[in-house]
């Protein structure tokens, strides 16, 4: 193509690159500090309140006590087992809910008659929260894994369906019309327009759904209890029964950190990627 760039240009590029990376490094450090600062203050307030009021152990314990409870639970193996059980349940629930919700959402998004007929039914059952079905599920399925799974799937299906539907609806009509003009059949349009076009909506629905499902999971594990072999939700409520606030708080923090990590490291990057790749349709 063109002549190779001479060495002075190269070194100038190199220098500016280095400068940029050190700049980026400093910016990263600053952003980490800025993100951690509020938590440091919170920790300080918690520790301070504990030191001043010296509350009994069933009300509040100090941060180091919670940390040691966390270490204990990891060493005796309960926490790792419970976390993997909970995550496994959530993953299975997500698969089932996605398999139901995404096609249903597409159907509702594509066909206005179907959506006007079924929308109120779906909204109504969405308003009956999954937790409200827990007693009924316990009667039907007993204190089992299945009860938890049904509640998770129930909770997740609605946000996934509604967002897949919105995803289809936000596709500009002209894409569909263009395909049709070029002679594409209905199935072809679904494959070429609706599926890729609704992708951002589907991803949003999955992310929301997993968030809701995670909450439902906690409630389900708590109600079903030991019978299903534990889980992070069970860990917290079991700790309460034992009167161990240190374990309760350790479990809560694990829950929050797990969710944040999943959100930042998995869901957000996927969603951003999807929006970049497919998001052009919702201009």
């Amino acid at each position, binding site marked *: 193509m063109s002549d190779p760039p001479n060495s002075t240009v190269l070194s100038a590029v190199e220098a500016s690159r280095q400068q940029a990376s050190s700049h980026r490094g400093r910016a990263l450090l600053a952003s980490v500090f800025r993100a951690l600062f509020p938590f440091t203050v919170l920790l300080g307030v918690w520790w301070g309140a504990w030191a001043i009021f010296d509350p009994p152990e069933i009300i509040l314990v100090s941060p180091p006590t919670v940390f040691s409870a966390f270490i204990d639970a990891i060493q005796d193996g309960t926490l790792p087992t419970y976390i993997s059980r909970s995550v496994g349940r959530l993953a299975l629930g997500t698969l089932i809910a996605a398999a139901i919700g995404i096609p249903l959402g597409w159907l509702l998004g594509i066909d206005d008659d179907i959506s006007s007929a*079924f929308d109120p*039914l779906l909204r109504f059952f969405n*308003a009956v929260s999954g*937790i409200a079905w827990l007693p*009924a599920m316990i009667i039907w399925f007993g204190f089992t894994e299945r009860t938890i799974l049904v509640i998770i799937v129930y909770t997740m299906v609605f946000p996934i369906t509604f967002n897949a539907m919105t995803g289809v609806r936000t596709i500009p009509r002209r894409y569909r019309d263009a395909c049709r003009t070029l002679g594409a059949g209905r199935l072809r349009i679904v494959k070429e327009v609706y599926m890729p076009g609704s992708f951002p909506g589907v991803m949003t629905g999955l992310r929301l759904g997993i968030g809701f499902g995670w909450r439902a999971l906690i409630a389900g594990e708590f109600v079903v209890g030991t019978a299903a072999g534990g889980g992070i939700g069970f860990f917290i409520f079991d700790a309460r029964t034992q009167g161990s606030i240190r374990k309760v708080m350790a479990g809560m923090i694990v*829950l929050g950190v797990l969710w944040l990590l999943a959100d930042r490291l998995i869901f957000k990057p996927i969603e951003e990627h999807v929006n970049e790749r497919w998001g052009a349709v919702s201009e």
Partner: protein
Amino acid sequence: MTELTFELPKTPASRRVKRFVVPLLPFAFLIAIWASIVALTDPAIGVLPSPMRVLEAPFDDSSTYFDNIEASLKRLVMGFTVAAVSGVVVGIAAGLSRRVAEFLGPLSTFMSAISGIAWIPLAVAWFGVGTGMVVFIIWNAAFFLIFANTMLGVRLVPKVYGNGLLTLGCSRLQVIRHAVVPGAMPYIMSGLRSGLGFGWRAVIAAELVGASSGLGFWIFEQQEFSRMDKIIAGALTIGVIGMAMDRWLLAPLERRTIERWGLVGTSS
């Protein structure tokens, strides 16, 4: 979303049929299936009662039923009021000041990551079993949503309005009152709307453990007696109340707010 559809104009009557009758069909279909399953297999009443039985169930002991609804709604009103006031105030502060936002933003993300239900054991330890604890859980479920929406709304109000008022000699408080709050109103309303929905779910979840009255308590108590008719009636009541609040109270309020104040753009 405005959509361009190319349909032939329909007569109002057929449109009304489409709007009110068609959505009822799936409900009717569902009830018909349910009734025929009951008629054909004749299951024990503790497993699947007939639709009629579910309809009658609350009135076996209607005063208990209505007392429990009242208890739940009272808690919701209390918790939601606290959440609405604190969420809007803190949200406005965070929307106006970068520093407040940078401080509270990560905390609020983390706190809302610890789902409301997981707070129940700690809340029981702090407040004991009863209304205080349920109110705390409702606050916890609704606050972060209202806070985040208010902050977003305040940020989206064009600076010109506030600056204009300042130039005209308004105080900072007047700017907040006449530019910031009205400008952010559509977002505040949508935050309140979803906050109330989450709050209602939280009431049920909290009552499951930490109360001796309320709809959530009631359905879990019935589970011990295998009274499936009352459980289904209770679950449906929860849905009806949740939907009625949203449809007839908050959705119209939100719509009106957007019509009245929606200069900054609307959120569906």
